[in-house]
């Protein structure tokens, strides 16, 4: 009996079955001395516990970075990193930035429209298939 590979019944996609958060780690860097870290230090003292408790799938690391502006760095499942400088920000502004990093996919930012037309992107295969000049013999370039 010839061996046959098991056919995939369904393709795994995020959001179908279980949702996997793309952000896997958030690094919080602050300075103990600098004034630009005042809001960040306040956020870490008062808001971080609640955020970390409500997002147990995200690893949170807090470490000082002396003589530097405060930075929040997000590490994503696709291996990319995104960093946001939160210098002189209030805790309320930092909450928004943390939310932004948490919900981000980790993909590089790109334009959603080009030359006035909407650019459609899809992970589904084309119904017509990939174009091939030898697809129909005798009728060149007639698609």
């Amino acid at each position, binding site marked *: 009996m010839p061996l046959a590979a098991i056919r995939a019944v369904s393709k795994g996609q995020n959001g179908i079955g279980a949702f996997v958060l793309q952000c896997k780690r958030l690094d919080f860097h602050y300075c103990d001395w600098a004034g630009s870290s005042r809001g960040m230090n306040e956020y870490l003292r008062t808001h971080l*516990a609640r955020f*970390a*408790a409500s997002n*147990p799938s995200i690893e949170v*690391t807090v470490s*000082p*970075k002396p003589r530097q502006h405060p930075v929040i760095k997000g590490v994503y499942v696709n291996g990319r990193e995104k960093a946001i400088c939160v210098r002189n920000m209030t805790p309320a502004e930092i909450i928004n930035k943390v939310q932004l990093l948490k919900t981000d996919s980790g993909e590089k930012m790109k334009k959603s429209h080009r030359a006035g037309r909407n650019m459609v992107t899809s992970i589904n295969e084309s119904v017509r298939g990939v174009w091939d000049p030898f697809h129909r013999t005798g009728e060149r370039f007639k698609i």
Partner: protein
Amino acid sequence: MPRIRAAEQALSLIASSSAKPQYVCRACRAHAATRQFHTTRPFAADVGFFKRIQQSLFGGKKAPEQEAQAKKQVEERAKADAEKQRTGQGRERKGRGYEVAAVYDPSINPEYVMANKWDELERVGGEKWVKAQKDQGVKYKGFNRHKPAELEDEQWLKVLRYVAVKVRGRQRIGQDALNANLGLQTLPVVLELPTDGTKSLEKWAYAASRISQGPGSTSTASATRASHTLDPETMEKEPWLAIPLQDPMVKFAITKRVTQLTGHRLRDPTISSARTLADLYTAYKTKAAPKKLAKTAEMMTLREYAPNVTVKERRQTPIHKEKAIGRWKVIEEELIARDLPVTGTRWKGARPSRIALTR
């Protein structure tokens, strides 16, 4: 400058008179010698030239004695060297003792092997070596402790009670408490001492309250309840804390001795605003706010609420990140095998101590 031809130059040299030494007669030369200018004053030699030569060749009258003395000195020196080698202890001219290094001679000790590596050899030179060699005989001992002591509330009470009793004793015999010697005991000794003199302190507090409230009042605690920040329970238990500190000399005497014992120094506004001993106690037992965010109570207890949080006290370098995943030892081994700097010592801002370690 115009160019001079070689022939012209040669002719001019022959013609010049400087090539020929001028004749000066002997009388003129002697006269010129006496007229030479000298800054040093001429003085006659102690021993004449002939006598000096004679002494150096054949010796003086005291030559046998000098020879005997020199011989004696050489013998004494040899004896001292032998003694030093035997005991391993030497002594300098100023009287400081030192250890004599053992002499290893391959001809005497067949077990002696010459080192062909730097490992385990004594390194001479460098900043650390110089510090180690420095005379450590007299060490500076400051008025304060090197590091402030960490005390519990009960221990603070003990220290304050001890100091207050001492100050009260000095006051009673009419001494100036601020400049008087309040004891030489160190903090561990003070903490172990039995709690004596509480009664006298209570009397002091009671008398002070009677003066301030008038002759009708009787309770010490009720009299001073309004003037301090302590809870009533502690005041009931330790009524002597109500001792008033209106006299600045008493206040300074207490704070000075407490600072000497514990290393804790109160701010001037805190000292000036303290009205009773209870206020000083409150100020001393209050812990200073931590300077580092990682040391605050909120950050220290964060992991209890959220186990996914890691708080680091120090800056995390790429080496820390590599260590966390167990790759650093591999990287380190490979760098050393290739004779490459391990911690970026080729960077021009690298610390010299690091460079010395890696080389």
